[in-house]
């Protein structure tokens, strides 16, 4: 399956080809992104690491912000 990934930190978008049973956590491993420092959204909803990805998904990877 092909999914479109927007990475907010680098302001970049890429299309990634993944196996059909891939979950969010697998995608983050593939992209070498630490899962503890990001939030992942599909369209306009946050999804968990266990969420199953689907063909043509639009995924956004947002960096957690902690400064005050």
């Amino acid at each position, binding site marked *: 399956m092909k999914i479109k990934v927007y990475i907010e930190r680098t302001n970049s978008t890429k299309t990634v080809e993944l196996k059909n049973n891939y979950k969010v956590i697998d995608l983050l491993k593939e992209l070498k992104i*630490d899962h*503890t*420092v990001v939030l992942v*959204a599909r369209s306009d909803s946050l999804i968990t690491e266990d969420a199953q990805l689907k063909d043509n998904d639009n995924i956004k990877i947002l*960096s*957690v*912000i*902690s*400064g*005050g």
Partner: protein
Amino acid sequence: MRYQKQELLSYIGNKQEFLQKKVVAIVGLGAIGSNTANLLARAGINLILIDRDIVELENLQRQTLYDEKDIGKPKSIQAKKKLKLINSEIKIEAFVEDLNYKNIDELINSDLILDCSDNMETRFLINDYSIKNDIPWIYAAVLGVNAMSMNIVPQKTPCFRCIFKESNAITENCDSVGVLNTITNLIATIQVNESLKILTNQEFNKSLVLFNIWNLSMQKFKINKNIHCEACSNLNFEYLDGKNTKQLIKLCGTNSFQIHGNPIDLENLYERLSKFSDAKINEYCVYSTSLTAFSDGRVLIRAENLNQAKSLYSRFIS
């Protein structure tokens, strides 16, 4: 008379009197907190101010309650002085403390807690306290030109731990990326806006909001409760119980580390530090270019890395 303009608004109207009975605790009086405190004081809301730090020159770019005369003095005390000049009718309590599991019960007994802190550990602690005591809180954070915020109202929204994970990773911070003073003002305004709704029992935002002020963009993301959440589902309050408390933490803003050790004799430390540096002492702390020490045992150390911070601590404190 003082609140005439906001009483004219249908959103506030006759709820102004109700608002004036409310108490909001602000955790962190830095860039976000000094702006939220300013707006809430002007709106007539009683405040509890908690901050562990002193004012430094590099804070003045964005921390709007302070001026050059405040440098070297505790933020919460200086903030209270300024806010009292703005609105002498409200009650303000100020604490020069590091919010932790031992003192949280006595410090933030309020109707609403505003997170204006600079670290995730404090946010997980506030989250535990909020759920256990059924008190709403609002997360707000900034980095660069970006900011995030989320309202957490027990029983009505998912909690912070439903969404955010514990992390030991070293991430980008205001040291490495910097921060624009317009984004800190913006997110403080959003936080106060949501506070007014929550305090007056009106409909509030239930999404995570993300702003990029440079691009003038705002995104809202729906959030779902995690049925396995340690805090709001399992009611396992690890941060409130002190199980996940670190004695040494990296702070945002400058190359700062906080080490919490045994109580410190400030006079004695001042004598020792004066031999090596331009140390100064006041009723709250001893401070020099490399460290600020409080009598309760807290030491803020400016260092390039963790090891250098530990080494400075060993040399001057322990």
